[in-house]
């Protein structure tokens, strides 16, 4: 027995080992690169071959043949692919059918062949529809194997309905080894392949699938129901079986005892008849000896024994006892009467069997005792019971009072039977009991007849055969039904729920990726239809919110655009009264708001500042940073700092709190209109184009400083360019040069330069419009990516300024200066008082220069008179000398509260000038002291 199991285990391991080898070949060798169809055929052939080996190498277990044919087919189908499983199943099944020819059992031919083929399709179907074409886990594999084998065994029943007992025998014997060998083989394969693939044996799952939840609940419910059914069926079948056993046994007893009685009765009657015939010729004692009977009595019509071989009986009234009275029937119509072996009326201790026949005078009664009766029975009973069956395998035993066997079927040892009864006793008559007889558990029932135990026996196996078949079949069918339900639930849930959820999910993921036009349309049932509608309406609401939000953002961007536009000087002509220059600027943002900006303004009568800048990035952030940069630069410029300091300090200010990492490129120029000097600084901006009168536009490529807001403490340089009337400066941002057309070509510097030089421009607006048009024409339909910003400036020349100059000024020249200034003031309708105050100031300042500026009291001095219109109407008188640098404004004011004697002469002049003039300015520039007095003119 253990040897058989070891062989079976080895046979079951063979497909496992083959599966491992094939798996490794597929994974690590050229074999894996073969095409799918070819591989499936190879797998199918290999596992089909293994199934054939399973059939041929079947291991006899308890008289049946267990093998691992189904296991090989299942492994092929589950682990290597649906087609492989089908091919293997067909090979295995067909071979099993044919194999009957060379001696493989034919009893389960149909069941085994069909099961093997079905195993192939079963594995294929599971792999395709339940396992999504992947290897199943070990537990599922185990269950799959168990269900397959249960099906196989059920098939054995179904195909052998006419011989259920035999089928039952096979199933009983094969269930254990067959189920174990096949399902463990499949499970082992699953485990080993999972380990080889590096998959965990117990998968961590994020959740339980719907089908699993239902399957679990169903498992619990169905198991309870199935167990209850099985118990009920068992109990019912048990009851039926027991009733049948009882019926069968007692009927057998009835038959046999009746037969025995009939035989013994007939025997005694025939004796009695013979004796009656010989009454005339012999006396009673002679007859009794001859026929070996206990007594012969003659009874008269009155029921009195008139003569008897037993003298004590003579005169006995038959009517006096129950036993004897029965014979009185012979005085009536009854001709013959036989009584059972029993105690007699006139001696309760005496057991006899009597028979009587009617005579003319009464009747003759013959009886015999135990010895004679037994001899009689022993002869007849054996013949009656020897070949009797109870049911199919049951039999009759006749035992005497010491349990020694009188009659038993062949093949059972009388000694063993006697021993069996001696040890277990015989219980009550006419009650079914169970006991072991000859090593077989049996049901038995007995009756005593004529001093014998007549026992009818039915082996338990037969008694419970139908019950066992019913329970087996019931249980197997339940397992199959359950497996079918299990799969059905999975497939139904998948079809009805999971697939719809997948559809919804795929739509949702489209929506999540921003495709709000996607709608969900799963209408297979009401719940999903309602879910779809809800999702769609959510998306609609979302869409509406987004639209509203984007409309609001658009509106805000529009506001921002307006704010930005109004922050830039945008009224042209900008300085209609100024004849020294013209300036025009424009900005076309790419989005609603941009990072580009320009600016221009005058900080005093003679200085125009203009700049163009580009903030990194676009949209609101760039626009906000632009406002900051613009304000910062303008504030510093208005503080009249040198341009390099404006940039240096502006850069530091912009670096501060620039967490967004924005930066600005800027080019700023400050034109001294009076002198015609352009001072400029560049912070990483595109080089401007400059055209000198009668020349061409050329790039002003000077070394640029670092971008603003990029790094703290960067130094910038101010550079100078002398302008003559007619010179033009064109500033732009990279939106111009990097404007891109549909062919991805850039407008470029060269094209810009060519355009600027292509014609003369009457004014700066014309110039900017022309460039914009040219850029637009180049770009065509391609979208505008960057802001396009331009500033054009043309220097027209400073107006002549009234000037008086002395190469060697002397104190005496004050009069000439005063006369010159007075003449200019007269042109301005200057009030007398102002004229006098200015004259005093001229006296003071000019004499100071001559006295203190030049050691030998003479040197060059220039005096200019300039009219100012901003911020007030005013007149300026400017003194320029090349003497010792000296700022008279730094001189301390005299104490005007002292007495005449305490006071020192001197210091009063500048003090008076300060008091009478509206403003004084001093600067030292290019080796010159430049002192300007400003006096407002009343309007």
């Amino acid at each position, binding site marked *: 027995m253990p040897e058989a199991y070891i062989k079976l285990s080895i046979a079951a391991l063979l497909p496992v080992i083959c599966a491992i080898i094939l798996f490794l070949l597929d994974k690590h060798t050229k074999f894996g690169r073969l095409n799918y169809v070819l591989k499936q055929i190879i797998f199918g052939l290999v596992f089909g071959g293994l199934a054939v080996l399973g059939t041929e190498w079947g291991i006899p277990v308890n008289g049946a043949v267990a093998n691992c044919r189904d296991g090989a087919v299942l492994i092929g189908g589950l682990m290597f692919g649906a087609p492989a499983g089908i091919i293997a199943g067909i090979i295995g099944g067909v071979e099993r059918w044919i194999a009957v020819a060379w001696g493989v059992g034919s009893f389960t031919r149909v069941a085994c062949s069909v099961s093997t083929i079905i195993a192939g399709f079963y594995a294929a179907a599971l792999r395709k529809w339940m396992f999504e074409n992947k290897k199943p886990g070990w537990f599922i594999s185990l269950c799959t194997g168990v269900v397959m084998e249960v099906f196989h065994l059920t098939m054995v029943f179904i195909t052998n309905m006419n011989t259920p007992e035999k089928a039952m025998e096979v199933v009983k014997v094969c269930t254990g080894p067959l189920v174990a060998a096949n399902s463990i083989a499949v499970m082992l394969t699953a485990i080993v392949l999972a380990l080889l693939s590096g998959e965990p044996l117990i998968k961590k799952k994020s959740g339980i699938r719907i089908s699993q939840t239902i399957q679990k609940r169903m498992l619990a419910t169905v198991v309870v129901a199935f167990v209850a059914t099985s118990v009920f069926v068992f109990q019912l079948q048990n009851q039926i079986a027991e009733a049948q056993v009882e019926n069968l046994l007692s009927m057998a007893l009835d038959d046999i005892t009746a037969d025995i009685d009939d035989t013994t009765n007939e025997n005694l009657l025939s004796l009695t008849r013979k004796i009656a015939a010989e009454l005339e010729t012999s006396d009673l004692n002679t007859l009794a000896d001859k026929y070996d009977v206990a007594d012969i009595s003659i009874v008269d019509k009155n029921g009195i024994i008139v003569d008897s071989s037993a003298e004590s009986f003579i005169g006995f009234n038959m009517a006096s006892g129950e036993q004897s009275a029965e014979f009185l029937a012979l005085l009536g119509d009854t001709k013959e009467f036989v009584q059972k072996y029993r105690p007699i009326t006139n001696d309760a201790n005496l057991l006899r069997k009597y028979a009587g026949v009617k005579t003319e005078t009464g009747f003759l009664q013959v009886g015999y005792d135990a010895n004679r009766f037994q001899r009689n029975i022993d002869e007849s009973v054996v013949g009656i019971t020897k070949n009797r069956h109870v049911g199919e395998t049951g039999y009759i035993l006749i035992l005497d009072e010491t349990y020694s066997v009188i009659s038993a079927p062949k093949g059972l040892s009388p000694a063993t039977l006697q021993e069996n009864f001696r040890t277990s006793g015989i219980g009550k008559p006419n009650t079914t009991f169970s006991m072991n007889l000859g090593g077989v558990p049996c049901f038995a029932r007995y009756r005593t007849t004529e001093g014998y135990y007549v026992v009818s026996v039915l082996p338990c196996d037969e008694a419970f055969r139908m019950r066992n078949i019913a329970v087996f079949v019931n249980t197997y069918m339940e397992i199959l039904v359950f497996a079918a339900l299990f799969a059905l639930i999975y497939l139904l849930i998948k079809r009805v729920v999971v697939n719809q959820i997948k559809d919804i999910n795929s739509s949702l993921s489209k929506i999540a990726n921003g495709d709000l036009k996607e709608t969900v349309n799963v209408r297979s049932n009401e719940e999903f239809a309602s879910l779809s509608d809800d999702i769609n309406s959510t998306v609609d609401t979302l869409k509406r919110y987004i639209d509203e939000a984007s409309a609001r953002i658009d509106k805000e961007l529009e506001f921002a655009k307006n704010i930005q536009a109004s922050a830039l000087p945008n009224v042209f002509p900008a300085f209609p009264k100024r004849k020294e220059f013209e300036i025009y600027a424009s900005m076309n943002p790419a989005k609603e708001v941009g990072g580009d900006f320009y600016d221009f303004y005058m900080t005093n009568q003679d200085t125009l500042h203009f700049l163009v800048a580009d903030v990194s990035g676009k949209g609101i952030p760039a626009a906000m940073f632009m406002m900051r940069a613009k304000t910062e630069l303008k504030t510093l410029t208005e503080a009249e700092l040198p341009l390099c300091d404006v940039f240096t300090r502006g850069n530091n200010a912009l670096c501060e709190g620039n967490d967004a990492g924005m930066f600005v490129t800027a080019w700023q120029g400050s034109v001294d209109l009076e002198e015609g000097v352009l001072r400029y600084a560049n912070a990483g901006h595109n080089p401007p184009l400059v055209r000198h009168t009668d020349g061409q536009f050329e790039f002003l490529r000077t070394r640029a400083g670092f971008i603003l807001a990029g790094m703290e403490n960067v130094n910038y340089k101010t550079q100078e360019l002398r302008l003559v009337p007619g010179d033009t400066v064109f500033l732009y941002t990279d939106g111009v040069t990097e404007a891109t057309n549909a062919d991805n070509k850039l407008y470029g510097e060269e094209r810009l330069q060519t355009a600027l030089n292509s014609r003369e421009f009457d004014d700066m607006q014309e110039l900017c419009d022309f460039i914009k048009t040219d850029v637009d024409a180049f770009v065509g339909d391609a979208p505008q990516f960057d802001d396009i910003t331009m500033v054009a400036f043309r220097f027209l020349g400073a107006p002549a300024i009234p000037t008086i100059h002395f190469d060697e000024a002397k104190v005496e020249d004050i009069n000439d200066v005063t006369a010159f200034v007075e003449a200019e003031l007269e042109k301005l309708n200057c009030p007398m*008082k102002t004229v*006098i105050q200015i*004259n*005093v100031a001229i006296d003071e300042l000019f004499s100071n220069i001559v006295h203190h500026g030049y050691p030998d009291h003479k040197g060059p001095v220039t005096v200019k008179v300039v009219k100012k219109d901003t911020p007030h109407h005013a007149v300026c008188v400017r003194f320029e000398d090349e003497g010792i640098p000296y700022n008279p404004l730094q001189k301390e004011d005299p104490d*005007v509260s002292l007495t*005449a*004697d305490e006071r020192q*002469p001197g210091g*009063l002049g500048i003090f*008076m000038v300060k008091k009478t003039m509206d403003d004084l300015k001093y600067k030292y520039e290019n080796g010159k002291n430049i002192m300007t007095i400003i006096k407002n003119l009343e309007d």
Partner: protein
Amino acid sequence: MQINKTKNDSNLTLALSGRLDTNTAPLLEAELGGNLDGVTDLVLDFANLEYISSAGLRVILSAQKEMNARGKMVIKNVCADIIDVFDITGFSDILTIE
């Protein structure tokens, strides 16, 4: 600038006309420098004086100091503009202006 000089014993009256500025102040200074001996009352008549600069103020201050020692000095007929100058410079407090 012109200076009309009227001397009567210890009274000296100087009537100035034109501009008392850097160039003319030395004239007044010279005039005063040589003629103040024995003068106790000095009168400066500014009726025709257009304006005065710091150079003029310096001469007037030194004259005032001189006259403080020997008598008194009076300035008369000062026009509003020059009064302004005197006010600004604090000279209004140290001069006697009639």
